[in-house]
C-alpha cells in the first residue's frame, strides 16, 4: 500500500453517510493489514504507544466495547472504559460536562456509544479529541457498517453490483443505516425487508428498495444481513409475537435457498436464535457471523490507527 493523499487523521468518525469511497477503501485496506496482527502470537505493536483512548458507553455492549478496547491495546494505546452506570452520569452530570471532564485528562480519542440519535455529533462539536461513534440511537454505527463491508469483501472480493439484503427491524437500526450508506457508496444494490411497522417507506430516498415480503427481497441475493429483533418492540404493538415474526420473517434454511447458492449470511449480534435467524443458518456453512467479530476488531484497529497516525506508517507495522 502506497502513501495515500486521502487521510482520516484527526477526523471524527460519526457516520457513513457522506463518507467518500476513497476514505472507506482506506479503512478497508488498512483493516486487512491489521487482521494479520490479530493472528500473531504476540499481538502487541507499539504504534499507538503514548496515546490514550476512552470508551464511553451509555448503553450495554459486548463486542463493540471489547473490540475497541482490544484494538487500542493491541496497537499499544492506553484504553480506559467508562460505564456510565458507575460514573458521575448517575449523579446527573450532563453529556457536555462528562465530555469536558474526559477532555481535561488529555485523551486522544473518545469512542462513544449513546442511546440518543445525534449524540455523537453533539460530542464532536464539544470535543477537541477525535470522536468515534460506536452507535448513536437508531442513527448510525459506522464501524459496524465498515466491518460488514470488510466481511463481504473477504468472501466476495467485491461489493459493486452485489445484491445485499438487510432483513429485520430496519426502522430502529443504526446498523441498517450505516450499511445502507456504505454499501451504496461502494456500488451495491441494497434491499431492506421486514414488517411494514419496522420499516420506513421514505428510506427509498436513500437509494434502496424496500420490501415487506422477505421472500421477494431475498430472491437472488448475494448477501443477507439479518438484524436483531428487539423484543420490547412487541410491547409497543409493532409486531404481534415472536412466534409470528419467526414464521413470517425469520431467516431459516428454506428461505435462504431463495438467495444465490453461495449467498453470505451475516448478523451484527447479539442474536435471538430461533427468532430472526434459525440456528442451522446461524451456524451453517454460509454464515460469516463469527468472522464478523474478528473483522470488527481489525476495522477498529484500522480506524484508531488512521485517526491517530494518518496512514503514512501502514507499511512499517504490517
Amino acid at each position, binding site marked *: 500500500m502506497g502513501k495515500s493523499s486521502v487521510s482520516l487523521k484527526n477526523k471524527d468518525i460519526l457516520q457513513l*453517510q457522506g463518507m467518500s469511497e476513497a476514505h472507506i477503501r482506506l479503512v478497508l485496506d488498512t483493516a486487512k493489514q491489521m487482521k494479520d496482527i490479530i493472528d500473531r502470537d504476540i499481538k502487541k505493536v507499539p504504534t499507538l504507544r503514548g496515546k490514550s483512548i476512552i470508551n464511553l458507553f451509555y448503553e450495554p455492549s459486548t463486542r463493540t466495547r471489547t473490540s475497541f478496547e482490544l484494538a487500542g491495546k493491541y496497537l499499544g494505546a492506553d484504553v480506559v472504559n467508562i460505564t456510565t452506570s458507575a460514573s458521575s452520569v448517575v449523579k446527573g452530570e*450532563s*453529556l*457536555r460536562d462528562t465530555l469536558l471532564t474526559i477532555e481535561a485528562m488529555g485523551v486522544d480519542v473518545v469512542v462513544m456509544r*449513546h442511546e*440518543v*440519535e*445525534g*449524540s455523537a*455529533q*453533539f460530542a464532536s462539536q464539544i470535543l477537541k479529541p477525535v470522536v468515534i461513534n460506536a452507535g448513536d*440511537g*437508531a*442513527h*448510525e454505527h459506522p464501524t459496524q457498517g465498515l466491518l460488514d463491508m470488510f466481511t463481504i469483501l473477504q468472501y466476495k472480493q467485491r461489493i459493486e453490483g452485489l445484491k445485499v439484503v438487510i432483513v429485520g427491524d430496519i*426502522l*430502529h437500526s*443504526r446498523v441498517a*443505516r450505516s450499511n445502507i450508506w456504505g454499501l451504496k457508496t461502494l456500488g451495491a444494490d441494497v434491499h431492506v425487508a421486514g414488517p411494514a411497522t419496522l420499516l*420506513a417507506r*421514505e*428510506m427509498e*430516498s*436513500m437509494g434502496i428498495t424496500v420490501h415487506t415480503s422477505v421472500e421477494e427481497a431475498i430472491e437472488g441475493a448475494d448477501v443477507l444481513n439479518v438484524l436483531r429483533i428487539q423484543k420490547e418492540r412487541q410491547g409497543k404493538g409493532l409486531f404481534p409475537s415472536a412466534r409470528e415474526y419467526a414464521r413470517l420473517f425469520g431467516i431459516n434454511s428454506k428461505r435462504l435457498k431463495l438467495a444465490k447458492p453461495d449467498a453470505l449470511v451475516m448478523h451484527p449480534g447479539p442474536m435471538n436464535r430461533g427468532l430472526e435467524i434459525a440456528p442451522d443458518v446461524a451456524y451453517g456453512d454460509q454464515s460469516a457471523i463469527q468472522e464478523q467479530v474478528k473483522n470488527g476488531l481489525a476495522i477498529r484497529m484500522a480506524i484508531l490507527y488512521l485517526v491517530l497516525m494518518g496512514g503514512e506508517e501502514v507499511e512499517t507495522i504490517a
Partner: protein
Amino acid sequence: MKRLLKGGRVIDPASRIDMLADVLIDGGKIVKLGRGISAMDAEIVDCSGKIVAPGLIDMHVHLRDPGLEAKEDIVSGTQAAAAGGFTMVACMANTRPPVDSSILVEGLRERARRDGIVRVGVIGAMTKGMEGKELAEIGDMKLAGAVAISEDGHHVTRSNLFLSGLEYAAMFNCPVITHAEDADLVSGGYMHEGTVSAVLGIPGRPSVAEDIAISRDIMLAEYAGAPIHIAHVSSKGAVEVIRAAKQRGVKVTAEATPHHLVLTDEAVYGYDTATKVNPPLRSADHVAALRAGLKDGTIDAIACDHAPHAFEEKDVEYRYAPSGFTGLETSLGVILTELYHTGEFSLMEIVDKMSQQPAKILGIAGGSLAEGAVADITVFDPEYCWTVETDKFYTRGKASPFAGKSLKGKAVLTMVEGKIVMRDGQVTA
C-alpha cells in the same frame, strides 16, 4: 404628551388605509390620522421610509411566569415582545403552577401591569392543574380578565371533557385555543415523520396526528355550536380540514407560526436542539399548504409560539431537550423576509394577520389605527437588513432555529398607549 409620527406609510387593515400619512397621538390615544398634520407642541418622530402599523399582537407566547423564571419572566418576555415590535402578547397557562384559577389570573395580570413592558393577555387553563381531568373555573377566570382558555402544551385527550369545556367557555364568550396533536400517535416521537426522520433514525410525530386531533376538535366545536381556535397549525391535512370547516360555517379560526411557514424538517439535520418543537417542523409539501392556507384566509393569524428554555435545558442530547424555542424577536423579520420580500404576501396582509386578526379572535381592542383608538403602534422598516444574534436577545431563551440568519425587515419603534417602549431595537421602558 403629544407625539406626531411623521411621514410614514400608514397601513391599517381595519380601515383598508395604505398611504403616506402622519399620525398624531395625545393622551395615549390616536387623535388624528392624515396628510400634512402639523402640531407645534408635539414631539416629532420621523417615520419616513418606514411602515406605521397598528400594534402587533402575538396571541401565543409562553412567558413562563410564575415558577419557571429560569426560562423567562414577565419582564424579559415583554422586553422581547417590545423589541420584536409587539404591543401585546397573550401568555399560555402552562406555568408552575398552571394558571387555572381566578386568583392566578388576577395576580398575573397585576404583575404584568406593574412589570410588563407591553400589554399581556392572560390565558387560563381549561382543566384544573392542566391534568385533563376536571374543568377549571373557566367562568371565574374569564370574569377575572382571562382573554382565552387553553391547555397549550398538549391535547385534551378526553373528548367528553373537551366538549364540556367548549360548551362551558362559550357561555362566557371565552375563546378556546387547542393544541391539537393526537397523544398516542406522537408518543415517543420528536420530529416530523418523513424522509428526514427515516435518515436520522429519530422517532416521528406523524402529520396525521395533527389532522386527527384538529378534526376531532373542530367536530366537537361544530356539535357544540361553539367557537374554537387552532394553535400552531402545521400539517397539510389540518389546513384542508380547517378550510372545509370554515366553508360549512363552523366558527373556527387558526394561527400559524413563522417557523412552520418558513422552515422544513431538513433543519433537523445536524441535530441542533433549537429545531425541536411541537408540532414539529414539517416537510416542504406541508409548508406550501400552510402558506396557501395563510393566503386564502384558512389561517387567520400569525403567532410565534415563543417558548423560551434555559441554556442548560437545550444544551443536551436532541431527544432530551425540551420542545420549543424563542420567537418574539425574530417573528416579524422572518415573516417580512420570507413572505413579503418573496412577493407572496403584501404588507397589508401581513399587518392584518399580525395585528387585527389576533385582536378579533381574542375579542379585544387593538389592531386598529382609527382616530380615538388607543395608541398601540408598531413602526417597522421593511428594508432593514440585520443578522440574528441570539446573545443580544432580550428573552432568556437563546435557542432559535433562525440564529445567524440574515433577515430583511425589523421593528424600529414600539408604542404602547402613546408611550415609546422600544426605539431602534433598544427597549426604553
